[in-house]
């Protein structure tokens, strides 16, 4: 990640090798899956249809990406990445993990167009959280 390396170089701290960095592509892929799920949910809601199995599969795929991102983040963190607001980052990671299952739980109680809207909102929130996590991680928040 170029911005972080530059920041580290500017403060005179050599960039730490974690074995692996939180990969940029994982972030982009997670955001893309989240936005695709949001579009799917919003489109279904717009058509006035309740969520179907495909929405559940979409949420499951998103949650896998979320898990991968959370695990890589926590591992890098444990290996010494310095975070400005550790408690806030922890809170965001927690929210990041629970939003998809919470959305599915509520959507299953609401087999109407509004259930689809909940899935869409969950996807949108996850995409925003990817961005916020990145800001917190790199200290630019």
């Amino acid at each position: 990640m170029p911005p972080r390396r530059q920041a580290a170089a500017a403060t005179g701290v050599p960039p730490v090798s974690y074995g692996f960095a939180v990969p940029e592509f994982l972030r982009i892929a997670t955001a893309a899956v989240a936005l695709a799920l949001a579009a799917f949910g919003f489109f279904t809601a717009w058509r006035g249809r309740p969520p179907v199995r495909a929405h559940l599969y979409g949420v499951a795929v998103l949650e896998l990406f979320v898990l991968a991102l959370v695990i890589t983040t926590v591992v890098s963190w444990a290996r010494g990445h310095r975070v400005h607001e550790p408690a806030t980052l922890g809170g965001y990671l927690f929210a990041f993990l629970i939003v998809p299952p919470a959305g599915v739980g509520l959507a299953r109680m609401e087999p109407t167009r509004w259930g689809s809207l909940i899935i869409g909102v969950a996807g949108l929130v996850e995409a925003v959280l990817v961005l916020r996590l990145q800001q917190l991680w790199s200290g630019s928040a």
Partner: protein
Amino acid sequence: MPEDQEQVVGTDESAPTPTGGRDIQHGFGRVLVFVYGLFALSAGARATVQIATKFHVAPVAYLLSALAAAIYLAATVCLAVGGERARRIAVACFSVELAGVLAVGTASEIRPSAFPDATVWSGFGSGYGFVPLVLPVIGLWWLLRTPRS
């Protein structure tokens, strides 16, 4: 994309209340429960962190954050529980929220020095994509709309 109509997931186990009262729990209300639940969680966590770690920096802002979180939580619970009493409490919550976001938003524009650290309501909720400003309006519309029955 599969055929949408066949395999609908989930069941609506609780039918709308037959009392003739306004049903705030179901339909769009559940979307509000989801969004308000998220805001209650995030505002609450944020206020807790702020008050626990750096209360002296901006006590007013952090107490406002805590107040906002409490109101979000109350609104979430009321929307989820439903019924006429809950609806009235939720109307009060949304009204206080709307007043709060407008007052704090205006105050933070006029006197930024009074708010050294951001609250959920600073700048009319600009830090949260103006969702804090839009939500109470949508919530009031949902609660005060013409009854379905």
